[in-house]
């Protein structure tokens, strides 16, 4: 059924495909990011409850959504890599992990900066913040595990395995944290009712989410190209390409 995908599992084809897509993806991602953010920052009305602080939503929500999207992508790549033994998919796992970690860090930092004026503290043990922190640990675990092996092949496979274990655990962690949070502290968080969002605020937000998704793709292309070169450095096509 997926026979048409086969050529893209070949690293050389994929390298050139990524190279072709990269400029379009990168330019459109950055343009949409600027458009969404400027629109959200300057051309939408302030929230009636939160004033102008709500404008952080235009980076907080996209980065939070895409930090989870990146994990899903990484785990899918890990699954493909381990089940069908496709090397390129192993490299994709390691290419995505740092991007996901940076997105998660952005979601955490912007969440803190939003929480300070709204909740009065930089950090509260809110269920979502806690889950996001644990997500960061999982990303760092994948990166650190890969880095601990001197044999790159083994490191790739083990990191993919950990990404898969993590994706099974993630829902369990998420629900237990949510349950724990409602048990320990209720009112302080829930009084911050989510405002039903006005269409004029929604459009820039959707554009920013799209921009973060495209940026994830663009960065994956960029990093995957490097990974292909590093892993295939002794193959003739790479030597011809680089050596000239």
């Amino acid at each position, binding site marked *: 059924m997926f026979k048409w995908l086969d050529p893209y599992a070949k690293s050389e084809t994929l390298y050139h495909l990524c190279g072709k897509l990269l400029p379009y993806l990168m330019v459109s991602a950055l343009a949409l990011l600027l458009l969404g953010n400027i629109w959200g920052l300057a051309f939408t009305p302030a929230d009636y409850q939160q004033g102008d602080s709500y404008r952080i939503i235009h980076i907080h929500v996209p980065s939070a959504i895409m930090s989870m999207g990146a994990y899903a992508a990484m785990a899918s790549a890990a699954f493909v890599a381990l089940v069908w033994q496709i090397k390129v998919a192993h490299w994709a796992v390691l290419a995505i992990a740092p991007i996901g970690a940076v997105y998660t860090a952005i979601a955490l930092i912007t969440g803190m900066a939003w929480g300070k004026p709204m909740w009065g503290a930089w950090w509260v043990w809110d269920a979502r913040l806690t889950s996001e922190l644990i997500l960061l640990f999982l990303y*760092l675990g994948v990166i650190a595990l890969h880095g601990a092996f001197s044999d790159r092949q083994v490191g790739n496979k083990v990191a993919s*395995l950990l990404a898969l274990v993590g994706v099974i655990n993630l829902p369990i962690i998420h629900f237990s944290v949510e349950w724990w949070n409602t048990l320990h502290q209720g009112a302080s968080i829930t009084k911050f009712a989510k405002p039903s969002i006005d269409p004029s605020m929604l459009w820039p937000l959707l554009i920013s989410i799209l921009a973060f998704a495209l940026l994830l793709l663009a960065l994956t292309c960029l990093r995957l190209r490097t990974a292909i070169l590093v892993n295939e450095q002794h193959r003739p096509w790479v030597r011809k390409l680089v050596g000239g």
Partner: protein
Amino acid sequence: MVSRIFLQRELRLLARQKADWLNPILFFIIVLSLFPLGVGPEPNMLRIIAPGVVWIAALLSVLLAAERLFKDDYRNGVIEQLVAGRQSLLAFVLAKTFANWLSTGLPLILLSPVVALLLGLEQAALLAMALTLLLGTPLLSLLSVLGSALTMAADKGGILLALLILPLYIPLLIFASSAIEAASMGLNYQGQLAILLAMLLLALALVPMAVTSALRINVS
């Protein structure tokens, strides 16, 4: 048959290397006795923090033992032989897990009356603690076997194992400590125990599979 041989081998190794299982137990007791010194001997205060303290001490002491689980077998080529000889890796993994639980999990359960004494827990909370340890320590063993298998061939161990395993421990920590807390307040805690059991069964089904593939990857 095969698993019995593996188990006998594990137990013989444990009997020879007493430090491997004595150190975590000592560590557990020392950490628990440091807490009252750190936060003050107030009985009410101790009773409030006890559930969390017990479980964090248990996590750390199991982690201490996890570091070396597969290292020696990897270095002297036992695992390579098992993989190459097409022996049942699953039996080996199960024996390893069971031996790990016998040497680190079981002592913690047996020590729970002492812990209750140190932290001033009542009978109901003691019972809850023993039950959560009974359900939780096998899960701890499974996860530490997994972490140890993943990092087996890694050149730089150290903090890595903690970074991998501790996020996976979080659900266990949450539900186990909340069960003890509920018990000390005289509430029903069967729900938490049921969730712990569910997590244990899920891990029992999935972790050995992940461990065998991790072992295969590491020696390939």
